[in-house]
């Protein structure tokens, strides 16, 4: 299958070894932008279709409840394991009462950043769960679409860039935002890592935006023969569920590469986010977690694989969570 050979003339070498060795040079010059221009224009063209739930982004719409469920589960898990953890992360809201399991507004009072929000599918859900949500995207048209759509919903207090709104959209990149002082309890970047040019730099920006003790949620696609078959061969070429050209196989990221990234210090001398991994390569559940998410065509829906499943469930789409150390 079309697995990239090491040393191919890619800006980024995608073998695990190359990735690791390239990304942790002591002084990588911070790139101006990791955004890929061709990718931005591709999505701008599709922007009008973002909210057609049966169209181009149908699979994404269907995936959304499962992503939110994962976020919900992990946030509650940490809250219950360490009730004071979030208040350490969010000292401003000292009166914040930990939400119960049944409460829909589990993110009440938290500052949440959605990087690469697209049409705002995830951002709107985050805001509905009570989060003060800032959603950013590299495409101005996406921001326009997302703002317009959210404004039609009276349940969301939304504005282009007001501080008081619970949901705001900004046309800005993570690399620019990180220059500002604002940090977040939760940073999400769903289905984005596989579209950027320099994932290591991108991840470093995202990580930097997380408050100590906060969460980073990612979702992406593993670089395996199975994922090529499913996401490119089946979804793009055969069944046309997704616009051809949406995915570039060589840019897919394997779970062990993400785990590897966070096992090393992000800054010289800093504490790594993942302190240890088990023999099978997986981190402890309180530091990071990888969960496969599988689309079952006969059910017409995604299934968030249970924790106990065999590694094959993370061979294609997966969700990744990692928590920043409190220091």
């Amino acid at each position, binding site marked *: 299958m079309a697995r990239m050979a090491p040393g191919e003339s890619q800006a980024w070498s995608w073998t695990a070894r190359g990735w690791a060795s390239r990304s942790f040079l002591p002084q990588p010059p911070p790139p101006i932008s990791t955004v890929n221009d061709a990718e931005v224009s591709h999505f701008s063209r599709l922007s009008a279709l973002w909210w057609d739930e049966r169209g181009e982004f149908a699979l994404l*719409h269907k995936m959304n409840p499962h992503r939110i469920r994962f976020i919900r589960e992990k946030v509650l898990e940490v809250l219950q394991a360490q009730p004071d953890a979030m208040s350490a992360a969010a000292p401003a809201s000292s009166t914040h009462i930990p939400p119960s399991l049944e409460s829909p507004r589990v993110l009440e009072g938290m500052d949440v950043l959605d990087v690469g929000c697209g049409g705002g599918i995830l951002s*709107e859900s985050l805001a*509905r769960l009570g989060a003060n949500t800032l959603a950013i995207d590299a495409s101005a048209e996406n921001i326009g679409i997302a703002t317009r*759509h959210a404004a*039609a919903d009276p*349940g969301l207090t939304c504005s282009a860039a007001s501080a008081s709104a619970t949901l705001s959209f900004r046309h800005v990149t993570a690399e620019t935002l990180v220059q500002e002082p604002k940090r977040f309890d939760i940073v999400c970047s769903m289905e984005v890592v596989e579209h950027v040019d320099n994932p290591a730099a991108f991840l470093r920006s995202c990580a930097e935006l997380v408050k100590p003790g906060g969460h980073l949620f990612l979702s992406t696609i593993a670089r395996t023969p199975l994922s090529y078959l499913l996401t490119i061969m089946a979804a793009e070429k055969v069944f046309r569920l997704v616009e051809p050209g949406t995915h570039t196989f060589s840019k897919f990221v394997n779970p062990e590469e993400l785990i590897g990234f966070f096992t090393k210090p992000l800054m010289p001398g800093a504490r790594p986010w993942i302190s240890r991994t088990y023999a099978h390569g997986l981190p402890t559940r309180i530091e990071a977690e990888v969960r496969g998410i599988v689309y079952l065509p006969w059910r017409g829906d995604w299934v968030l694989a249970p924790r106990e499943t065999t590694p094959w469930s993370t061979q294609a789409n997966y969700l990744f969570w990692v928590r920043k150390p409190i220091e």
Partner: protein
Amino acid sequence: MRGASSNIRRAVRVACRRRGSPQVLWRYFSDSGTDAPGHEDCDVVVVGGGPAGLALASALASKRTLRGSVKVTLVEGSDLSKIYNWDLPPDAFSNRVVSLTNATLDFLDEIGAWTHVDVERTCPIEEMQVWDGISDARMDFNAAALGISRRGGSNQMARLTETLNLQRGLLRRLREQPNVTLLDNTKVMNISEDDIPGGAWPMVQLSDGVTLRARLLVGADGINSPVRSYSKIDSYGWDYPTCAIVATLLHPPRTFRPNTCAYQRFLPTGPIAFLPLSPTASSLVWSTSPALAAVLTKTDPAVLTSMINAAFRLPEVSVRYLHGHLLDVPSLSPDDLRAEISFREQAHAIAPYSALASANVHPAEAGVGIPDEGAHGLPPLVADIQPGTVASFPLRFRHAEAYIGNRTALIGDAAHVIHPLAGQGLNLGLGDAAALARCIQTAVMHGGDIGSRTALVPYTRERYFENHKMMSAVDKLHKLYASTAPPLVWARSTGVEVLNELDTLKAGIIGAAGGRSSAHSVPGSPWEMVAGGVETLVSGTRVMGAVGTGLRSVAGGILQQLGRVASGPGKDQRE
């Protein structure tokens, strides 16, 4: 039932958010309705105050997780205070009754509505006797013998009550639930899409001048659903060439058994059903030709009484003759009819002490002392009909092609209309309400937009096929029993008799399914089983050329079907 006649001063709480500022205000709804222009934003607007609409509103309001986040407004054109204040003496009953399956009862319990239903006016169904009008092949379901029991112990396969008793209970429950705004005497004048960019939400224009902008618009508005038309959802189906006659029947109490058995005889013109309500009152649902229904609803009640008693007892050929006779002589006097029935009984050699005799027996004597021969298999002799309760309505089959549209969802009769022979219509409607409420709750927990397709698809997935199965089974049952062709009668009778003998199998299957506590694993009623067997029979007879190949394959088919019924409900749709 028009609101204009109502001069009752009713305070209606309007808890919808006006644009911008949330506010709660009290308004008096009267004919002076013109309010400020603009619109009110609502999360869920339910159109229709029938049982399904009320149950949905109540289910949404009773979910703890939805309190404070989902505001519900229910719009009803008629005056609901009439139902709220509905009251009848204990020995009088309204003519529209419903049979609530155990799953439905669990749901009503769960939303806190059952405690508001007057239980004195309900009656458990502990047994069901169903037989073929031509061959007399009989199916007997006994809840105790089959091990069907409801949580709490009583052996019942369903519970009968008046629709109004249920509706009043739901309204009383809603009165306690501040999250729901009830707008009755308010008609929906028009539904259109808003013109807000990125919106296209339904704007519901009400007769009092207010316009509601709905995140989710639910059509619980009946067979000619305006919400369905707005959603551009087609529905397919047909009108049966039959009408149902309903009436409240009065009879003396039975001494040898409580009045908790439902009886149904499948005549070729349609089934006639006797549904117990109290020791001395029962309800009639009789499907028959529109012409006969027209005569029977206008005739002397004594004639109708005799016709009902005869329809349960006389051989089919004589029942057919009596129907023809009455159509020829609509002004037939009660005495002439009795003489005719008496003659027919003699011709069929029905002895006066037999339970099949009705012409010369006084109903009060029939129930006393040693029961007549065969009395167990027949309903008590009807003595009289409660005045003013005879009515008839046409029977239809309708199924919407989809249950969800752009920010709309259909429940109850707006989504499906079914033949009443198995008493499943209302249960399907309440099942819809339960499923939609669950679906909305899940969506809210996941930060979803409850009007979006993504949020609503699980509702369709849970209900559409489930409803369709029951609907087509009931339809086939109706058509199967409408036939008088001897091979078909033989096949259906053999099938039914074989099935009826397999008591342990029946018990095992229903017992196992009923043992599970989830509302979804309990079969809706024994009807599901009957219908399943019948469905196999239809295809079986078709393949075999109807004759001769014998009992073995028919029985085999039924066994197979039973196995499927037993294993069928174990679905894993809910995570």
